């Protein structure tokens, strides 16, 4: 935004909920299901105000039966409804992954394209507030590894709204990951970037396009959600040292916008990938591999990866802080890269 505009500031959760509300107005087939999405408005505010506005028929509190209600979303989508179903924490995927992975992801393919499943599974990811091993994961790669699902993870209120609208209108099943700390909730860390300008009218942000959020010539940093914000902060600090980092917000794991990454690496010749998910067999590996396949000769330094070092997320604050990559680790990694 380079011109002076009226800034309509919303938190991440309100941006999401606004997208859902507007789509519910637009299309009577859109409805919401999940644990505590009713009066409570979703534990992380994703459904704030919807129950009050649309009632219990279209905003349905469910029993703690993720297999049944996510499976029911599949069945309803096959009948032409457009369910938005919430898995409260992504960490709970294991009780319902069969529905997500063997059915939601595959039915379109197995039916030779005849069955469409226009549904969104929204789920909270991320740690950083001592919620420990079973409530702090991002699991980006777990979902992105298996074909048939679009997997997106927006990082700003603007993208949360625009990508939610796109996800609802998409005829394919979409995993919509929102980061708890980026919801801008009153009871969590208050971060500047969890509040942002969100136009009132509906708009879409495409699923599958990465975003160059900061241009630079010396090094490319690819991040997603929190690690992207950390990368921007690190880049600002590095600029003082005279290092200009280009920061890419991946936004979408599937489809993966490899052109944006490759173009950047071809320009900067150095790559750091930063992830809040586990390191091995993760997002950082995929991006590194793509570059090693397609832009090997453009690299002037070995690729660096930062991620959770293959340990479950520990509870204690100093332990958690030690394993989740932050601004400092990114800065150090970039310094190492450019020294090369």
């Amino acid at each position, binding site marked *: 935004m380079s011109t002076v505009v009226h800034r309509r500031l919303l938190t991440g959760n309100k941006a999401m909920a606004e997208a859902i509300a507007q789509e519910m107005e637009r299309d009577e087939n859109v*409805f919401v299901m999940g644990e505590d999405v009713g009066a409570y408005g979703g534990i992380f505010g994703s459904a704030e105000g919807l129950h009050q506005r649309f009632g219990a028929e279209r905003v349905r509190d469910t*029993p703690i039966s993720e297999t049944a209600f996510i499976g*029911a979303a599949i*069945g309803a989508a*096959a009948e032409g409804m457009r369910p938005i179903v919430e898995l409260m924490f992504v960490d709970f995927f294991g009780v319902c992954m069969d529905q997500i992975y*063997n059915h939601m992801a595959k039915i379109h393919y197995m039916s030779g394209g005849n*069955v469409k499943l226009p549904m969104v599974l929204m789920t909270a990811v991320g740690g950083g507030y001592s919620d420990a091993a079973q409530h702090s994961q991002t699991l980006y790669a777990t979902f992105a590894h298996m*074909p048939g699902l679009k997997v997106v993870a927006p990082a700003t209120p603007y993208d949360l709204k625009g990508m939610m609208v796109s996800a609802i209108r998409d005829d*394919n099943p979409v995993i919509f990951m929102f980061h708890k700390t980026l919801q801008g909730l009153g009871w969590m860390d208050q971060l500047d970037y969890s509040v942002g300008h969100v136009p009132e009218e509906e708009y879409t942000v495409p699923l599958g396009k990465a975003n160059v959020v900061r241009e630079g010539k010396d090094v490319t940093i690819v991040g997603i959600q929190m690690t992207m914000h950390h990368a921007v902060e690190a880049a600002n600090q590095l600029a003082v040292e005279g290092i200009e980092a280009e920061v890419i917000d991946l936004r979408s794991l599937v489809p993966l916008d490899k052109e944006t990454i490759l173009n950047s690496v071809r320009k900067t010749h150095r790559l750091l990938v930063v992830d809040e998910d586990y390191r091995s067999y993760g997002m950082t590996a995929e991006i590194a591999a793509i570059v090693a396949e397609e832009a090997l000769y453009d690299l002037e330094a070995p690729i660096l990866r930062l991620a959770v070092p293959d340990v479950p997320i520990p509870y204690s604050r100093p332990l958690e802080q030690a394993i989740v990559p932050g601004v400092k680790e990114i800065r150090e990694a970039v310094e190492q890269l450019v020294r090369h």
Partner: protein
Amino acid sequence: MSIPLEKLKWMYETMVKIRLYEETMVQVYMEGKNPVFNIGAGTVPGEMHLAAGQEPAAVGIGAHLRKEDTVTASHRPHHNAIAKGVDLNRMTAEIFGKETGLGKGKGGHMHLFDTDVKFSCGGIVAAGVPHAVGAALAAKMKGKDWVAVAFIGEGAANAGAFHESLNLAAVWKLPLIVVVEDNSYGISVPKAVSTAVPFNAERASAYGIAGFYVRNNDPVEMYRVSEDAVKRARLGEGPALIEIETYRYLGHFQGDPEVYRGIDEVPALREKDPIVRVKSLLVEEGVSQGELNAMETRARSAVDEAYQFARESAYPQPGAALEDVFDLAAQ
């Protein structure tokens, strides 16, 4: 007898069609698997779960269903598909892996999707029950009197998805009917070894819904019990659970050594064949031998045509494997 004659005739012809379909498949499946059996070889590769003997479950409730009603089935789906009116040609082509198949050859025997008659099935035990819950929910939200029927085996009733689905459907008073086909085994494991109660129908009380047990693989009793359940579901009175004692004449899958059951078991079951029983009923009702023959002939023709259609269809081009992961027209 309280069944309208037309319904009983439909049930008979459909049972005959199912039986012929499955018996034909027994033969076809072995094409290319002789002298050495190789599951991946031949005209029809992969696992093959047949339902000869289990026709009553499919037709007893199928007689009450309309095109708009949804049916989800399991890894053993042919009888349920046929009773729901799935396109037999395209179903068979799918099982042959041909491009004319319901899923262009991508799904196969365990994954048949016919959107015209709202039929689907899948290879994961009990996983179709939640889908039927969702169809029932859609019907309710759209204000239609459509019902959804989920067929599962008795072994599947011990899976968590069964419990969660029945509770959810009961809480939301959805038009869902779960039909448990109790053929005594989950692969090799007898019901008594896997299930803490003799009858899954007893579990209906755990959801405050109606539960029924149909004995002796009886299609007429299945018809009666289903009539009530379907009617109540259409009226918005919520779900029901029907279990039927049924017989699996063949192995769990073709090639099953069946070490887990005695050699006399199946012959004894075949003695009580439900098709024969329905035929006698029709004869009692005065249906002529000529009409019976005509029904059997129609069934035979439909089956023959389907296999021929499948045989004559082409395989998909290899490159088709890369299509249909996502709907590209979308958005």
